[in-house]
């Protein structure tokens, strides 16, 4: 069997291949040769073969059959074999293969090898790809090596320990004793890796962090020596002594000083020294300064130091080097929350960075600009940002548009400015705005009542120019639908009113319906707008015609709308004006609020009913909690009263017509029904009882059972007042044991009139699944003759029929 070709030969041969297919052929041939060589258990050439395999693996070809061979190489005694074997293990094996555990014993032996380079190889491999099982087995060996006096091994053992801790955090304690005198080393390699080890431990465990705080003076001393010492050829980089170690120490100081006054105090001087003395002409110096700034911002430094840090960042911003500008912008973004005013000073430089050619810098500058916008600088900043929006790459437009909307909403100096800004965004970046901006904008426009005419006019003019940007078109058609009458009447105050006829407006809207540029959603908007105009314009016939055409549209959404609107014209024409009335002002409740409302816009929702509930009258939850304490720990939910909403003015027919209601409407319907249910007294012969009678206030309970559920007892309380003065702000609360469930509906009134002239009634519903004897605690609060009265009572005398 001829000797397998050398690695170099193979590489040279493969590189001569002109096509991918040729290369693959060569590789396959060589793989076959290697495989047969492996089968023959050839020791002499195993190393060479595995090396070739690694090369082919780098080119992207599978090499898993070499895994066991790597293990054999590791076990070999030749250093060359071991070197390639460990390299192969690091490249081909990982913790997912079971094979890797076979390495454990080899590594263990090699960790105790007499040659330090073999030990080094073993430590390196363990520290790069050791799995948690391997780490657990070998942690003891690593710990031993951490205490050796050989600095070559010590530094490797330290990083290996870092890896072990990352894989098996529980073993961290084990390395604690060995760290005692790590920092007294002179060797920079050991120092550096020790600092890394300490950093890792402090990041993972607050106890370790507290324990290592005492090292701060020592670290400060080491750092000082590095800065003050003269030229050291071994560690010098462009005139700075061992920048890697300096940065690492600064990072550890940051972690140790965070949140701790004493440590931060101890570091102030050295940080100031580093910040002022470091050479900034080369990247190295700036790297150290950058780390220093990060440390200053994180610890509890004095204000002078913080200002120094921000000024350094400001200087970075003016640096010619792009990397440094990028880094400055990133750091300023992190500090803008805490040191807002200081960062504001550099605002103009930041805004200039928006015009930079570099993509990364532009993005950071944009984010930072948005963070810096406030009430004072909004006009200027917005000008710059809008200019940026005009000229930036598409990848930025969506984020920038959202940012502009948010900023405008928070800080708009006037409604007109706000609307102008929005118009500007829609016209320049219209197709990139996010979907949820359309409802938000509509809500904003609705709320600025005095600007309606101006808005609709501007939107109309924008539509005449360009109908391709969907969000713009949608907002515009909605507005024209709502405020078309203002458009026709030429009422605009803010600018020169334009002369538009009804037909022109309808032409535009119909144009949207037929245009290829319009999306289905947009078509829906324009159809609805046309429909709404039927109550605002006089050319109703034309509108009727348009609507009926779309009754047979292929688009299901459009068809449904058209059919419903047709029905509105034919059968429910009397309701049309009410339905298509102006939208009321929508309050922005939760983030979902406006969206919900607007989604139902397309369904010509009645303007009267709103899916909002006014806050419940009377019992706030906190008072309920007091009652809970009384029942000795039985946690019973005291449900605050639910509010029946005002019934819809249009009555039941409306509910039928608008089949798919929004949540609010259906809730309202439920409450109406519920109210009817409870009002229907089906007396089943349970005698009424007096629950409370004191100080002139008498509370009677009357019972009925809710028909569908025999376990639910419906109790109506009647509160009457026999004294001469009214009892106002009357609040009744009740709590029941855990086995029951209670629901309190709202009272008829808050005032119990004097001298038994009237009663306050309130309905309680109690669910008694387990048929337990009913008992209740009640709490009464009211104001009588100017003083507040509060009373608690227990009601135990329920008639047995009420709970059986």
């Amino acid at each position, binding site marked *: 069997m001829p000797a397998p070709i050398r690695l170099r030969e193979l590489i040279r041969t493969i590189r001569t291949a002109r096509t991918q297919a040729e290369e693959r052929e060569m590789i396959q041939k060589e793989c076959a040769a290697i495989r047969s060589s492996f089968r023959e258990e050839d020791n002499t050439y195993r190393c060479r073969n595995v090396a070739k395999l690694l090369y082919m693996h780098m080119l992207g070809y599978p090499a898993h059959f070499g895994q066991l061979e790597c293990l054999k190489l590791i076990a070999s005694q030749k250093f060359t074999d071991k070197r390639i074997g460990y390299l192969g293990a690091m490249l081909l094996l990982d913790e997912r293969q079971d094979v890797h555990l076979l390495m454990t014993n080899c590594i263990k032996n090699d960790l105790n090898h007499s040659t330090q380079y073999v030990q080094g190889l073993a430590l390196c491999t363990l520290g790069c790809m050791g799995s948690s099982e391997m780490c657990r087995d070998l942690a003891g060996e690593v710990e031993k090596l951490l205490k050796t006096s050989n600095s070559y091994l010590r530094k490797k053992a330290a990083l290996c320990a870092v890896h072990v801790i990352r894989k098996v955090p529980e073993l961290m304690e084990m390395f604690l004793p060995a760290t005692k005198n790590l920092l007294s080393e002179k060797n920079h390699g050991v120092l550096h890796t020790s600092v*890394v080890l300490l950093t890792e431990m402090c990041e993972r465990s607050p106890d370790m962090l507290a324990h290592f705080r005492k090292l701060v003076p020592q670290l400060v001393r080491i750092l000082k020596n590095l800065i003050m010492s003269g030229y050291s050829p071994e560690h010098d980089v462009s005139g700075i002594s061992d920048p890697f170690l300096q940065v690492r120490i600064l990072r550890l100081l940051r972690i140790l000083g965070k949140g701790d006054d004493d440590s931060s105090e101890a570091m102030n001087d050295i940080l100031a020294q580093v910040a002022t003395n470091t050479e900034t002409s080369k990247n190295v110096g700036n790297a150290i300064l950058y780390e220093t700034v990060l440390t200053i911002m994180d610890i509890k430094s004095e204000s002078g130091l913080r200002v120094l840090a921000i000024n350094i960042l400001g200087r970075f911003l003016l640096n010619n080097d792009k990397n440094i500008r990028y880094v400055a912008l990133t750091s300023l973004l992190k500090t803008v929350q805490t040191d807002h005013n200081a960062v504001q000073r550099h605002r103009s430089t930041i805004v200039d960075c928006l015009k930079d050619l570099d993509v990364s810098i532009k993005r950071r500058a944009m984010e930072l600009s948005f963070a810096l916008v406030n009430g004072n600088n909004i006009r200027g900043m917005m000008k710059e940002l809008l200019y940026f929006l005009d000229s930036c790459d598409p990848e930025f437009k969506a984020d920038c548009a959202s940012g502009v909307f948010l900023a405008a909403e928070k800080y708009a100096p006037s409604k007109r400015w706000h609307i102008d800004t929005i118009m500007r965004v829609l016209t320049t970046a219209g197709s990139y705005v996010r979907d949820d901006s359309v409802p938000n904008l509509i809500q904003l426009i609705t709320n600025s009542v005095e600007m309606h005419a101006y808005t609709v006019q501007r939107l109309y003019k924008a539509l005449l120019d360009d109908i391709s940007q969907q969000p713009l078109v949608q907002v515009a058609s909605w507005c024209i639908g709502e405020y078309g009458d203002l458009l026709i009447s030429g009422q605009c105050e803010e600018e020169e009113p334009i002369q538009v006829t009804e037909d022109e407006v309808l032409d535009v809207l119909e144009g949207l319906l037929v245009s290829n540029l319009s999306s289905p959603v947009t078509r829906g908007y324009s159809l609805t707008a046309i429909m709404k105009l039927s109550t605002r314009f006089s050319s109703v016939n034309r509108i009727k015609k348009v609507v009926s055409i779309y009754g047979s549209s292929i688009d299901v959404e459009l068809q449904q709308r058209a059919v419903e609107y047709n029905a509105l014209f034919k059968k429910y024409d009397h309701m049309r004006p009410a339905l298509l009335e102006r939208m009321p002002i929508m309050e922005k409740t939760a983030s979902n609020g406006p969206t919900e409302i607007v989604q139902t816009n397309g369904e010509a929702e009645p303007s009267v009913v709103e899916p909002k509930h006014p806050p419940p009258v009377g019992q706030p939850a906190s008072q309920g909690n007091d009652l809970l304490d009384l029942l000795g720990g039985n946690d019973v939910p005291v449900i605050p009263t639910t509010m029946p909403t005002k019934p819809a003015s249009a009555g039941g027919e409306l509910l039928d017509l608008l089949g798919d209601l929004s949540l609010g409407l259906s809730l309202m319907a439920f409450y109406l029904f519920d109210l009817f249910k409870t009002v229907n007294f089906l007396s089943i012969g349970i005698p009424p009882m007096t629950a409370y009678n004191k100080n002139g206030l008498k509370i009677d309970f009357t019972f009925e059972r809710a028909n569908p559920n025999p376990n639910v007892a419906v109790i109506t309380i009647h509160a009457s007042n026999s004294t001469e003065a009214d009892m106002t702000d009357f609040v009744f609360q009740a709590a029941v044991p855990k086995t029951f469930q209670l629901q309190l509906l709202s009272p008829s009134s808050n005032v119990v009139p004097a001298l038994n002239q009237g009663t306050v009634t309130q309905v309680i519903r109690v669910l008694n699944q387990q048929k337990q004897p009913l008992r209740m605690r009640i709490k009464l609060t009211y104001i009588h003759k100017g003083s507040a009265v509060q009373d608690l009572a227990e009601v135990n005398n329920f008639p047995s029929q009420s709970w059986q």
Partner: protein
Amino acid sequence: MRFLLLFSRQGKLRLQKWFTPITEREKKKIIRDMTTLVLARQPRSCNFLQWKDLKIIYKRYASLYFCLAVENQENELLALEVIHRYVELLDKYFGNVCELDIIFNFEKAYFILDEFLMGGEIQETSKQMVNRCIEASDMLQEVRCTGTNAHMDLNHTRSIVISHVVFICLFAGVGILKRLGFWCFTKQ
């Protein structure tokens, strides 16, 4: 640090070092993403990118791109220095290193990297130390039965020579397979 990649202007991978365990498929995907992202960058743009939750620092040296991925709290400017230090080490070792050196001696490039970085952290900050260690290890490969030319100026006390001679003589004749069998099947 998460990973270090070296690739040519045509996107051919020359070196890959992964500091966290990742599946082969993931690795291939990351390599593809990195090469596309970095090669698409304009010539005079800044050397930093944001990719998923990592910061990518890349630098071009002649025909090779060095691409290093670090976590968000690490110092990018220092990462540039790390890349530069590695290039200097390669340069010192190969003498005016070029891409071909790394292609034909990729295993040496790995050895040098393993003396400089370990587990995603820097292990030695002195150029001279790293070079000395590499040279000594190379010598170890060369030395056969005699231990005479074993002078290596390192500041440690262990005697390489004696131990080297001892283990070469002891194990040269013994069947390695037998020992291998013993080692492979005793795990703990």
